[in-house]
Protein backbone atom coordinates (compact mmCIF):
# COMPACT_ATOMS: atom_id res chain seq x y z
CA UNK A 1 0.00 0.00 0.00
CA UNK A 2 3.10 2.13 0.15
CA UNK A 3 2.98 3.02 -3.56
CA UNK A 4 1.34 6.20 -4.78
CA UNK A 5 -1.72 4.67 -6.41
CA UNK A 6 -4.93 6.50 -7.31
CA UNK A 7 -7.69 5.35 -5.00
CA UNK A 8 -9.87 4.63 -8.08
CA UNK A 9 -7.78 1.50 -8.92
CA UNK A 10 -9.51 -1.81 -8.10
CA UNK A 11 -7.83 -4.42 -5.94
CA UNK A 12 -5.13 -6.27 -7.97
CA UNK A 13 -6.38 -9.60 -6.66
CA UNK A 14 -9.92 -8.97 -7.82
CA UNK A 15 -9.14 -8.02 -11.40
CA UNK A 16 -7.67 -9.80 -14.46
CA UNK A 17 -5.07 -8.05 -16.62
CA UNK A 18 -6.07 -7.07 -20.18
CA UNK A 19 -4.36 -9.58 -22.53
CA UNK A 20 -1.40 -8.36 -24.60
CA UNK A 21 -2.61 -6.81 -27.88
CA UNK A 22 -1.08 -7.94 -31.15
CA UNK A 23 -1.86 -5.22 -33.72
CA UNK A 24 0.89 -6.43 -36.08
CA UNK A 25 -0.73 -9.86 -36.25
CA UNK A 26 -4.06 -8.30 -37.27
CA UNK A 27 -2.51 -6.06 -39.92
CA UNK A 28 -0.35 -8.87 -41.31
CA UNK A 29 -3.27 -11.26 -41.29
CA UNK A 30 -5.52 -8.79 -43.10
CA UNK A 31 -2.90 -8.08 -45.78
CA UNK A 32 -2.30 -11.77 -46.38
CA UNK A 33 -6.03 -12.41 -46.48
CA UNK A 34 -6.36 -9.81 -49.23
CA UNK A 35 -3.71 -11.57 -51.31
CA UNK A 36 -5.41 -14.92 -50.81
CA UNK A 37 -8.70 -13.40 -51.90
CA UNK A 38 -7.15 -11.91 -55.05
CA UNK A 39 -5.52 -15.25 -55.88
CA UNK A 40 -8.73 -17.21 -55.44
CA UNK A 41 -10.57 -14.65 -57.55
CA UNK A 42 -7.97 -15.15 -60.29
CA UNK A 43 -8.46 -18.91 -60.14
CA UNK A 44 -12.22 -18.59 -60.37
CA UNK A 45 -12.56 -15.84 -62.94
CA UNK A 46 -9.67 -16.54 -65.35
CA UNK A 47 -11.29 -18.26 -68.33
CA UNK A 48 -7.98 -19.68 -69.53
CA UNK A 49 -7.97 -22.16 -66.65
CA UNK A 50 -10.98 -23.87 -68.24
CA UNK A 51 -12.25 -25.59 -65.12
CA UNK A 52 -14.80 -27.70 -67.04
CA UNK A 53 -11.89 -29.20 -69.03
CA UNK A 54 -10.00 -29.87 -65.79
CA UNK A 55 -13.05 -31.63 -64.37
CA UNK A 56 -13.45 -33.66 -67.57
CA UNK A 57 -9.89 -35.01 -67.49
CA UNK A 58 -9.48 -35.49 -63.70
CA UNK A 59 -10.79 -39.04 -63.86
CA UNK A 60 -10.08 -39.87 -67.50
CA UNK A 61 -8.65 -43.41 -67.98
CA UNK A 62 -5.45 -42.07 -69.54
CA UNK A 63 -4.72 -39.82 -66.54
CA UNK A 64 -5.63 -42.54 -64.05
CA UNK A 65 -3.31 -45.00 -65.78
CA UNK A 66 -0.52 -42.42 -65.59
CA UNK A 67 -1.33 -41.88 -61.93
CA UNK A 68 -1.00 -45.61 -61.30
CA UNK A 69 2.42 -45.65 -62.99
CA UNK A 70 3.58 -42.67 -60.93
CA UNK A 71 2.55 -44.48 -57.75
CA UNK A 72 4.18 -47.72 -58.82
CA UNK A 73 7.43 -45.91 -59.74
CA UNK A 74 7.46 -44.06 -56.41
CA UNK A 75 6.78 -47.23 -54.47
CA UNK A 76 9.34 -49.44 -56.24
CA UNK A 77 12.06 -46.78 -56.31
CA UNK A 78 11.64 -46.21 -52.56
CA UNK A 79 11.64 -49.94 -51.72
CA UNK A 80 14.78 -50.66 -53.76
CA UNK A 81 16.40 -47.39 -52.68
CA UNK A 82 15.85 -48.09 -48.97
CA UNK A 83 16.95 -51.72 -49.25
CA UNK A 84 20.21 -50.73 -50.95
CA UNK A 85 20.50 -47.83 -48.50
CA UNK A 86 20.44 -50.17 -45.46
CA UNK A 87 23.21 -52.28 -47.00
CA UNK A 88 25.27 -49.18 -47.82
CA UNK A 89 24.80 -47.77 -44.30
CA UNK A 90 25.91 -51.03 -42.69
CA UNK A 91 28.91 -51.16 -45.06
CA UNK A 92 29.77 -47.58 -44.21
CA UNK A 93 29.73 -48.40 -40.47
CA UNK A 94 31.68 -51.65 -40.87
CA UNK A 95 35.30 -51.82 -39.82
CA UNK A 96 36.32 -53.23 -43.20
CA UNK A 97 38.02 -50.38 -45.11
CA UNK A 98 37.08 -51.87 -48.50
CA UNK A 99 33.38 -51.86 -47.56
CA UNK A 100 33.68 -48.33 -46.20
CA UNK A 101 35.36 -47.06 -49.34
CA UNK A 102 32.96 -48.82 -51.71
CA UNK A 103 29.99 -47.38 -49.86
CA UNK A 104 31.51 -43.90 -49.81
CA UNK A 105 32.23 -44.08 -53.56
CA UNK A 106 28.69 -45.24 -54.36
CA UNK A 107 27.15 -42.43 -52.32
CA UNK A 108 29.53 -39.88 -53.82
CA UNK A 109 28.60 -40.95 -57.36
CA UNK A 110 24.84 -41.34 -57.08
CA UNK A 111 24.38 -38.24 -54.99
CA UNK A 112 26.51 -36.22 -57.36
CA UNK A 113 24.97 -37.17 -60.71
CA UNK A 114 21.60 -35.52 -61.44
CA UNK A 115 18.78 -38.08 -61.66
CA UNK A 116 17.79 -36.75 -65.08
CA UNK A 117 21.28 -37.50 -66.44
CA UNK A 118 21.09 -40.97 -64.88
CA UNK A 119 17.71 -41.72 -66.44
CA UNK A 120 18.97 -40.91 -69.93
CA UNK A 121 22.20 -42.77 -69.25
CA UNK A 122 20.51 -45.96 -68.03
CA UNK A 123 18.10 -45.83 -70.96
CA UNK A 124 21.03 -45.78 -73.33
CA UNK A 125 23.02 -48.42 -71.46
CA UNK A 126 22.98 -50.71 -74.52
CA UNK A 127 25.36 -48.28 -76.25
CA UNK A 128 27.91 -48.98 -73.50
CA UNK A 129 27.21 -52.64 -72.67
CA UNK A 130 25.45 -54.43 -75.54
CA UNK A 131 24.82 -57.73 -73.73
CA UNK A 132 24.32 -58.70 -70.11
CA UNK A 133 25.22 -62.19 -68.91
CA UNK A 134 25.28 -64.13 -65.68
CA UNK A 135 28.13 -66.57 -65.15
CA UNK A 136 31.57 -66.98 -63.71
CA UNK A 137 33.80 -64.01 -64.61
CA UNK A 138 36.27 -65.10 -67.32
CA UNK A 139 34.52 -68.50 -67.18
CA UNK A 140 31.36 -70.12 -68.54
CA UNK A 141 28.16 -68.09 -68.98
CA UNK A 142 24.82 -69.47 -67.77
CA UNK A 143 22.49 -66.82 -69.08
CA UNK A 144 22.79 -64.01 -71.57
CA UNK A 145 20.46 -61.31 -72.87
CA UNK A 146 20.73 -58.21 -74.96
CA UNK A 147 20.71 -55.03 -72.92
CA UNK A 148 18.13 -53.53 -75.25
CA UNK A 149 15.61 -56.13 -74.14
CA UNK A 150 16.29 -55.58 -70.44
CA UNK A 151 16.32 -51.81 -70.44
CA UNK A 152 12.81 -50.57 -71.02
CA UNK A 153 11.79 -47.01 -70.13
CA UNK A 154 10.32 -48.46 -66.95
CA UNK A 155 13.41 -50.40 -65.80
CA UNK A 156 15.67 -47.47 -66.71
CA UNK A 157 13.43 -45.21 -64.62
CA UNK A 158 13.50 -47.56 -61.63
CA UNK A 159 17.28 -47.88 -61.87
CA UNK A 160 17.88 -44.14 -62.01
CA UNK A 161 15.43 -43.23 -59.27
CA UNK A 162 16.27 -46.11 -56.91
CA UNK A 163 20.02 -45.64 -57.16
CA UNK A 164 19.74 -41.92 -56.48
CA UNK A 165 17.47 -42.66 -53.53
CA UNK A 166 19.85 -45.33 -52.20
CA UNK A 167 22.61 -42.74 -51.81
CA UNK A 168 20.40 -40.33 -49.87
CA UNK A 169 18.74 -43.11 -47.86
CA UNK A 170 22.04 -44.62 -46.76
CA UNK A 171 23.29 -41.36 -45.24
CA UNK A 172 19.96 -40.95 -43.47
CA UNK A 173 19.94 -44.56 -42.21
CA UNK A 174 23.55 -44.27 -41.06
CA UNK A 175 22.62 -41.22 -38.99
CA UNK A 176 19.65 -43.14 -37.57
CA UNK A 177 21.83 -46.10 -36.60
CA UNK A 178 24.45 -43.85 -35.02
CA UNK A 179 21.75 -42.11 -32.99
CA UNK A 180 21.16 -45.36 -31.07
CA UNK A 181 23.33 -45.30 -27.97
CA UNK A 182 26.27 -47.67 -27.53
CA UNK A 183 24.59 -48.80 -24.31
CA UNK A 184 21.91 -50.58 -26.37
CA UNK A 185 24.49 -52.58 -28.29
CA UNK A 186 26.42 -53.38 -25.11
CA UNK A 187 23.29 -54.51 -23.25
CA UNK A 188 22.37 -56.79 -26.15
CA UNK A 189 25.94 -58.11 -26.38
CA UNK A 190 26.03 -59.03 -22.69
CA UNK A 191 22.81 -61.00 -23.23
CA UNK A 192 24.74 -63.12 -25.72
CA UNK A 193 23.24 -61.75 -28.93
CA UNK A 194 25.27 -61.98 -32.14
CA UNK A 195 26.06 -58.97 -34.34
CA UNK A 196 23.27 -59.74 -36.80
CA UNK A 197 20.74 -60.26 -34.01
CA UNK A 198 21.68 -56.96 -32.37
CA UNK A 199 21.34 -55.12 -35.66
CA UNK A 200 18.04 -56.73 -36.63
CA UNK A 201 16.31 -56.89 -33.25
CA UNK A 202 17.66 -53.91 -31.32
CA UNK A 203 19.32 -51.25 -33.48
CA UNK A 204 17.32 -51.17 -36.71
CA UNK A 205 13.84 -51.15 -35.08
CA UNK A 206 14.87 -48.17 -32.97
CA UNK A 207 16.58 -46.43 -35.88
CA UNK A 208 13.44 -46.91 -38.00
CA UNK A 209 11.39 -44.91 -35.48
CA UNK A 210 13.76 -41.98 -35.85
CA UNK A 211 13.79 -42.40 -39.62
CA UNK A 212 10.04 -42.32 -40.30
CA UNK A 213 9.85 -38.53 -40.82
CA UNK A 214 12.85 -38.35 -43.20
CA UNK A 215 11.65 -41.45 -45.09
CA UNK A 216 8.24 -39.79 -45.46
CA UNK A 217 9.95 -36.69 -46.75
CA UNK A 218 11.98 -38.69 -49.26
CA UNK A 219 8.85 -40.50 -50.45
CA UNK A 220 7.16 -37.18 -51.20
CA UNK A 221 10.29 -35.98 -53.00
CA UNK A 222 10.35 -39.23 -54.96
CA UNK A 223 6.72 -38.77 -55.96
CA UNK A 224 7.74 -35.51 -57.62
CA UNK A 225 11.04 -36.82 -59.01
CA UNK A 226 9.12 -39.49 -60.92
CA UNK A 227 7.88 -36.73 -63.25
CA UNK A 228 11.42 -36.74 -64.72
CA UNK A 229 10.60 -40.01 -66.48
CA UNK A 230 8.67 -38.05 -69.11
CA UNK A 231 12.05 -37.70 -70.87
CA UNK A 232 11.94 -41.46 -71.45
CA UNK A 233 8.43 -41.12 -72.92
CA UNK A 234 7.17 -43.25 -70.04
CA UNK A 235 3.48 -42.32 -69.60
CA UNK A 236 3.42 -41.36 -65.92
CA UNK A 237 1.00 -38.77 -64.59
CA UNK A 238 2.82 -35.79 -66.12
CA UNK A 239 3.58 -37.43 -69.46
CA UNK A 240 -0.01 -38.65 -69.80
CA UNK A 241 -1.18 -35.06 -69.33
CA UNK A 242 1.41 -33.87 -71.84
CA UNK A 243 0.26 -36.44 -74.41
CA UNK A 244 -3.31 -35.22 -74.06
CA UNK A 245 -2.51 -31.54 -74.41
CA UNK A 246 -0.23 -32.17 -77.37
CA UNK A 247 -3.40 -33.38 -79.15
CA UNK A 248 -5.90 -30.91 -77.74
CA UNK A 249 -3.71 -27.83 -77.01
CA UNK A 250 -5.39 -27.48 -73.60
CA UNK A 251 -2.00 -27.07 -71.93
CA UNK A 252 -2.93 -25.19 -68.76
CA UNK A 253 -6.02 -27.22 -67.79
CA UNK A 254 -4.09 -30.50 -68.13
CA UNK A 255 -1.16 -29.20 -66.12
CA UNK A 256 -3.71 -28.23 -63.48
CA UNK A 257 -5.06 -31.79 -63.55
CA UNK A 258 -1.55 -33.15 -62.93
CA UNK A 259 -0.90 -30.54 -60.24
CA UNK A 260 -4.07 -31.41 -58.37
CA UNK A 261 -3.23 -35.12 -58.45
CA UNK A 262 0.33 -34.51 -57.22
CA UNK A 263 -1.05 -32.41 -54.37
CA UNK A 264 -3.60 -35.06 -53.45
CA UNK A 265 -0.94 -37.78 -53.41
CA UNK A 266 1.52 -35.77 -51.35
CA UNK A 267 -1.25 -34.92 -48.88
CA UNK A 268 -2.14 -38.59 -48.53
CA UNK A 269 1.54 -39.46 -48.04
CA UNK A 270 1.92 -36.75 -45.38
CA UNK A 271 -1.02 -38.21 -43.49
CA UNK A 272 0.32 -41.73 -43.87
CA UNK A 273 3.69 -40.64 -42.47
CA UNK A 274 2.12 -39.00 -39.42
CA UNK A 275 -0.13 -42.01 -38.92
CA UNK A 276 2.84 -44.43 -38.93
CA UNK A 277 4.84 -42.12 -36.66
CA UNK A 278 1.99 -42.07 -34.13
CA UNK A 279 1.55 -45.83 -34.30
CA UNK A 280 5.23 -46.57 -33.76
CA UNK A 281 5.35 -44.20 -30.82
CA UNK A 282 2.47 -46.09 -29.27
CA UNK A 283 0.30 -42.99 -28.96
CA UNK A 284 -3.47 -43.16 -29.37
CA UNK A 285 -4.51 -42.98 -32.98
CA UNK A 286 -7.14 -40.23 -32.79
CA UNK A 287 -7.44 -38.28 -36.04
CA UNK A 288 -7.31 -35.06 -34.03
CA UNK A 289 -3.90 -36.03 -32.64
CA UNK A 290 -2.55 -36.69 -36.13
CA UNK A 291 -4.02 -33.42 -37.38
CA UNK A 292 -2.62 -31.40 -34.52
CA UNK A 293 0.83 -32.90 -35.02
CA UNK A 294 0.64 -31.65 -38.61
CA UNK A 295 0.11 -28.04 -37.59
CA UNK A 296 1.51 -27.86 -34.09
CA UNK A 297 4.42 -25.52 -33.51
CA UNK A 298 6.12 -25.38 -30.16
CA UNK A 299 8.41 -22.55 -31.15
CA UNK A 300 6.70 -19.74 -29.24
CA UNK A 301 4.75 -21.74 -26.71
CA UNK A 302 7.51 -22.09 -24.07
CA UNK A 303 7.30 -24.90 -21.58
CA UNK A 304 3.71 -24.62 -20.44
CA UNK A 305 2.46 -26.47 -23.51
CA UNK A 306 5.13 -29.13 -23.32
CA UNK A 307 3.97 -30.04 -19.86
CA UNK A 308 0.44 -30.32 -21.17
CA UNK A 309 1.22 -32.56 -24.16
Amino acid at each position, binding site marked *: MGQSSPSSRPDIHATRPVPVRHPARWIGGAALFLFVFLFVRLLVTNENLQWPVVAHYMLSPEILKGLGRTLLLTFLAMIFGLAIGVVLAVMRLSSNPVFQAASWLWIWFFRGVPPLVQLVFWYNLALLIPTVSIGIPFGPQFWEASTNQLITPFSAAILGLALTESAYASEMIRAGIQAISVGQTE*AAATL*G*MTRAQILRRIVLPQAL*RILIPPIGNDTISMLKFTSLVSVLALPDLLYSAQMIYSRTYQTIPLLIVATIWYLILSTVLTFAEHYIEHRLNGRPLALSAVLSSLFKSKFWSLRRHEARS
Partner: protein
Amino acid sequence: MTAATPLLKVERLSKSFGTHQVLRNIDLAIETGEVMCIVGPSGSGKSTLLRCLNYLETPDSGAVFLAGEPVGVRWRGSTLYEMSFNELAVQRQRMGMVFQSFNLFPHKTALENVIEAPIVVKRKKKAEAITEAEALLEKVGLADRAHYYPRQLSGGQQQRVAIARSLAMQPALMLFDEPTSALDPELVGEVLAVMRALAEDGMTMVVVTHEMSFARDVADHLVFMDQGVIVEEGHPRDVLSHPRHSRTKTFLARVI
Protein backbone atom coordinates in the same frame (compact mmCIF):
# COMPACT_ATOMS: atom_id res chain seq x y z
CA MET B 1 45.56 -76.78 -8.93
CA THR B 2 43.68 -76.52 -5.63
CA ALA B 3 40.50 -78.36 -4.69
CA ALA B 4 38.25 -76.35 -7.01
CA THR B 5 38.83 -73.91 -9.85
CA PRO B 6 37.39 -70.50 -8.98
CA LEU B 7 34.35 -69.55 -11.08
CA LEU B 8 36.09 -66.44 -12.34
CA LYS B 9 39.79 -65.79 -12.26
CA VAL B 10 41.71 -62.73 -13.40
CA GLU B 11 45.45 -63.00 -13.98
CA ARG B 12 47.86 -60.10 -14.44
CA LEU B 13 45.28 -58.00 -16.31
CA SER B 14 46.43 -54.63 -17.71
CA LYS B 15 44.64 -52.06 -19.81
CA SER B 16 45.54 -48.61 -21.12
CA PHE B 17 43.53 -45.95 -22.88
CA GLY B 18 46.12 -44.16 -24.98
CA THR B 19 49.01 -43.30 -22.68
CA HIS B 20 46.86 -43.56 -19.56
CA GLN B 21 47.24 -46.92 -17.84
CA VAL B 22 43.86 -47.73 -16.27
CA LEU B 23 44.59 -51.22 -14.92
CA ARG B 24 47.97 -52.59 -13.80
CA ASN B 25 48.52 -56.29 -13.28
CA ILE B 26 45.23 -57.11 -11.62
CA ASP B 27 44.85 -60.56 -10.01
CA LEU B 28 41.48 -61.63 -8.69
CA ALA B 29 39.49 -64.79 -7.96
CA ILE B 30 35.76 -65.18 -7.40
CA GLU B 31 34.33 -68.42 -5.99
CA THR B 32 30.89 -69.75 -6.87
CA GLY B 33 28.22 -68.16 -4.67
CA GLU B 34 30.52 -65.35 -3.58
CA VAL B 35 29.52 -61.67 -3.60
CA MET B 36 32.44 -59.41 -4.40
CA CYS B 37 32.16 -55.63 -4.09
CA ILE B 38 34.70 -53.40 -5.79
CA VAL B 39 34.97 -49.88 -4.36
CA GLY B 40 37.31 -46.97 -4.93
CA PRO B 41 37.43 -43.37 -6.07
CA SER B 42 36.21 -42.42 -9.56
CA GLY B 43 38.84 -43.08 -12.19
CA SER B 44 40.37 -45.90 -10.16
CA GLY B 45 39.66 -48.39 -12.96
CA LYS B 46 36.93 -50.42 -11.27
CA SER B 47 34.37 -50.10 -14.07
CA THR B 48 37.03 -50.86 -16.69
CA LEU B 49 38.00 -53.97 -14.73
CA LEU B 50 34.36 -55.10 -14.69
CA ARG B 51 34.03 -54.46 -18.43
CA CYS B 52 37.18 -56.49 -19.08
CA LEU B 53 35.61 -59.52 -17.37
CA ASN B 54 33.12 -60.03 -20.22
CA TYR B 55 35.39 -58.44 -22.83
CA LEU B 56 33.27 -55.33 -23.43
CA GLU B 57 36.77 -53.89 -23.19
CA THR B 58 39.64 -55.94 -24.54
CA PRO B 59 42.53 -56.09 -22.05
CA ASP B 60 46.00 -55.24 -23.37
CA SER B 61 47.54 -58.15 -21.53
CA GLY B 62 46.63 -60.74 -18.95
CA ALA B 63 43.79 -63.25 -18.96
CA VAL B 64 40.32 -63.86 -17.59
CA PHE B 65 39.13 -67.41 -16.94
CA LEU B 66 35.48 -68.41 -16.58
CA ALA B 67 35.27 -71.83 -14.90
CA GLY B 68 38.82 -72.47 -16.02
CA GLU B 69 38.18 -71.53 -19.66
CA PRO B 70 39.94 -68.44 -21.05
CA VAL B 71 37.51 -65.63 -21.97
CA GLY B 72 37.78 -63.93 -25.36
CA VAL B 73 40.54 -66.22 -26.63
CA ARG B 74 40.74 -69.87 -27.60
CA TRP B 75 43.53 -72.42 -27.85
CA ARG B 76 43.87 -74.44 -31.01
CA GLY B 77 46.84 -76.71 -30.55
CA SER B 78 49.55 -74.47 -29.17
CA THR B 79 48.29 -71.30 -30.88
CA LEU B 80 46.09 -68.79 -29.11
CA TYR B 81 43.33 -67.25 -31.26
CA GLU B 82 41.22 -64.17 -30.63
CA MET B 83 37.50 -64.95 -30.50
CA SER B 84 35.08 -63.34 -32.95
CA PHE B 85 32.21 -61.24 -31.62
CA ASN B 86 29.79 -64.10 -32.17
CA GLU B 87 32.01 -66.70 -30.43
CA LEU B 88 32.33 -64.28 -27.53
CA ALA B 89 28.53 -64.02 -27.43
CA VAL B 90 28.38 -67.63 -26.24
CA GLN B 91 30.64 -66.84 -23.27
CA ARG B 92 28.81 -63.61 -22.52
CA GLN B 93 25.55 -65.53 -22.07
CA ARG B 94 27.04 -66.93 -18.86
CA MET B 95 27.87 -63.49 -17.42
CA GLY B 96 24.87 -61.23 -16.93
CA MET B 97 25.54 -57.50 -16.72
CA VAL B 98 23.61 -54.62 -15.20
CA PHE B 99 24.57 -51.10 -16.24
CA GLN B 100 24.55 -47.76 -14.49
CA SER B 101 22.22 -46.36 -17.16
CA PHE B 102 19.92 -49.47 -17.25
CA ASN B 103 20.07 -49.71 -21.07
CA LEU B 104 16.65 -51.28 -21.38
CA PHE B 105 15.40 -51.60 -24.95
CA PRO B 106 13.05 -48.60 -25.19
CA HIS B 107 10.96 -50.07 -28.02
CA LYS B 108 9.99 -53.09 -25.95
CA THR B 109 7.82 -53.49 -22.85
CA ALA B 110 9.30 -54.76 -19.58
CA LEU B 111 8.16 -58.29 -20.41
CA GLU B 112 9.47 -58.08 -23.99
CA ASN B 113 12.82 -56.89 -22.66
CA VAL B 114 13.05 -59.98 -20.47
CA ILE B 115 11.94 -62.56 -23.08
CA GLU B 116 14.06 -61.09 -25.92
CA ALA B 117 17.33 -62.95 -25.29
CA PRO B 118 15.81 -66.31 -24.24
CA ILE B 119 13.80 -66.36 -27.48
CA VAL B 120 16.42 -64.96 -29.85
CA VAL B 121 19.58 -66.45 -28.33
CA LYS B 122 18.40 -69.61 -26.59
CA ARG B 123 15.58 -70.26 -29.10
CA LYS B 124 13.07 -70.88 -26.34
CA LYS B 125 9.37 -71.19 -27.12
CA LYS B 126 7.59 -67.89 -26.59
CA ALA B 127 5.06 -69.27 -24.11
CA GLU B 128 7.81 -70.84 -22.02
CA ALA B 129 9.88 -67.63 -22.09
CA ILE B 130 6.86 -65.60 -20.99
CA THR B 131 6.14 -67.91 -18.04
CA GLU B 132 9.75 -67.63 -16.89
CA ALA B 133 9.84 -63.86 -17.46
CA GLU B 134 6.67 -63.38 -15.42
CA ALA B 135 8.26 -65.31 -12.55
CA LEU B 136 11.38 -63.11 -12.78
CA LEU B 137 9.37 -59.89 -12.84
CA GLU B 138 7.48 -61.19 -9.81
CA LYS B 139 10.82 -61.80 -8.11
CA VAL B 140 11.94 -58.19 -8.66
CA GLY B 141 8.51 -56.95 -7.56
CA LEU B 142 7.28 -55.76 -10.95
CA ALA B 143 4.68 -58.35 -11.97
CA ASP B 144 2.13 -55.55 -12.38
CA ARG B 145 4.43 -53.54 -14.68
CA ALA B 146 5.03 -56.28 -17.27
CA HIS B 147 3.34 -54.37 -20.08
CA TYR B 148 4.81 -50.95 -19.36
CA TYR B 149 7.45 -49.42 -21.61
CA PRO B 150 10.74 -48.34 -19.99
CA ARG B 151 9.83 -44.65 -20.33
CA GLN B 152 6.72 -45.28 -18.21
CA LEU B 153 8.81 -46.72 -15.36
CA SER B 154 10.85 -44.99 -12.67
CA GLY B 155 14.63 -45.41 -12.64
CA GLY B 156 14.47 -47.95 -9.84
CA GLN B 157 11.84 -49.97 -11.70
CA GLN B 158 13.86 -49.84 -14.91
CA GLN B 159 16.94 -51.12 -13.12
CA ARG B 160 14.94 -53.98 -11.60
CA VAL B 161 13.65 -54.92 -15.06
CA ALA B 162 17.27 -54.84 -16.27
CA ILE B 163 18.23 -57.27 -13.50
CA ALA B 164 15.35 -59.58 -14.48
CA ARG B 165 16.42 -59.34 -18.13
CA SER B 166 19.93 -60.52 -17.24
CA LEU B 167 18.67 -63.30 -14.98
CA ALA B 168 16.49 -64.62 -17.80
CA MET B 169 19.63 -65.99 -19.47
CA GLN B 170 20.38 -68.00 -16.31
CA PRO B 171 23.94 -66.69 -16.06
CA ALA B 172 26.61 -68.30 -13.90
CA LEU B 173 27.46 -64.92 -12.46
CA MET B 174 26.19 -61.35 -12.53
CA LEU B 175 28.23 -58.20 -13.05
CA PHE B 176 26.85 -54.91 -11.66
CA ASP B 177 28.39 -51.66 -12.91
CA GLU B 178 27.37 -48.98 -10.39
CA PRO B 179 23.73 -50.10 -10.56
CA THR B 180 22.38 -47.39 -8.26
CA SER B 181 24.53 -44.40 -9.25
CA ALA B 182 22.00 -42.99 -11.72
CA LEU B 183 19.06 -43.28 -9.33
CA ASP B 184 17.29 -40.71 -7.18
CA PRO B 185 18.24 -41.37 -3.53
CA GLU B 186 14.78 -42.64 -2.57
CA LEU B 187 14.89 -45.29 -5.34
CA VAL B 188 18.27 -46.78 -4.40
CA GLY B 189 16.80 -48.98 -1.66
CA GLU B 190 14.45 -50.99 -3.89
CA VAL B 191 17.28 -51.96 -6.26
CA LEU B 192 19.65 -52.87 -3.41
CA ALA B 193 16.88 -54.99 -1.84
CA VAL B 194 16.57 -57.00 -5.07
CA MET B 195 20.36 -57.45 -5.21
CA ARG B 196 20.41 -58.50 -1.56
CA ALA B 197 17.75 -61.14 -2.23
CA LEU B 198 19.75 -62.33 -5.22
CA ALA B 199 22.85 -62.71 -3.03
CA GLU B 200 20.83 -64.70 -0.49
CA ASP B 201 19.71 -67.03 -3.30
CA GLY B 202 23.38 -67.84 -3.80
CA MET B 203 24.02 -65.91 -7.04
CA THR B 204 27.69 -65.17 -7.71
CA MET B 205 27.98 -61.39 -8.03
CA VAL B 206 30.67 -58.83 -8.81
CA VAL B 207 29.40 -55.39 -7.84
CA VAL B 208 31.14 -52.09 -8.57
CA THR B 209 29.46 -49.69 -6.17
CA HIS B 210 29.63 -46.61 -3.99
CA GLU B 211 27.08 -48.03 -1.55
CA MET B 212 29.29 -48.78 1.46
CA SER B 213 26.48 -50.12 3.63
CA PHE B 214 25.56 -52.63 0.92
CA ALA B 215 29.22 -53.66 0.63
CA ARG B 216 29.50 -54.08 4.39
CA ASP B 217 26.28 -56.07 4.80
CA VAL B 218 26.20 -58.22 1.68
CA ALA B 219 29.72 -58.69 0.32
CA ASP B 220 31.83 -61.72 1.17
CA HIS B 221 34.84 -60.08 -0.35
CA LEU B 222 35.64 -56.38 -0.64
CA VAL B 223 38.19 -55.03 -3.08
CA PHE B 224 39.50 -51.49 -2.78
CA MET B 225 41.04 -50.09 -5.97
CA ASP B 226 42.93 -46.90 -6.60
CA GLN B 227 44.88 -45.74 -9.66
CA GLY B 228 44.49 -49.03 -11.48
CA VAL B 229 45.73 -51.36 -8.75
CA ILE B 230 44.09 -53.36 -5.99
CA VAL B 231 45.25 -51.57 -2.86
CA GLU B 232 43.57 -53.82 -0.37
CA GLU B 233 41.12 -56.72 -0.31
CA GLY B 234 39.56 -59.06 2.16
CA HIS B 235 36.43 -59.51 4.20
CA PRO B 236 34.50 -56.21 4.30
CA ARG B 237 34.52 -56.25 8.10
CA ASP B 238 38.32 -56.20 8.11
CA VAL B 239 38.82 -53.78 5.24
CA LEU B 240 36.22 -51.28 6.44
CA SER B 241 37.03 -51.39 10.17
CA HIS B 242 40.76 -51.96 10.06
CA PRO B 243 42.11 -50.59 6.79
CA ARG B 244 45.83 -51.18 6.57
CA HIS B 245 46.73 -48.71 3.81
CA SER B 246 46.64 -44.96 4.10
CA ARG B 247 44.89 -44.66 0.71
CA THR B 248 42.08 -46.91 1.94
CA LYS B 249 41.81 -44.88 5.14
CA THR B 250 41.60 -41.59 3.23
CA PHE B 251 38.92 -42.96 0.89
CA LEU B 252 36.83 -44.46 3.67
CA ALA B 253 37.04 -41.28 5.72
CA ARG B 254 35.55 -39.42 2.77
CA VAL B 255 32.68 -41.78 1.94
CA ILE B 256 31.51 -43.07 5.32
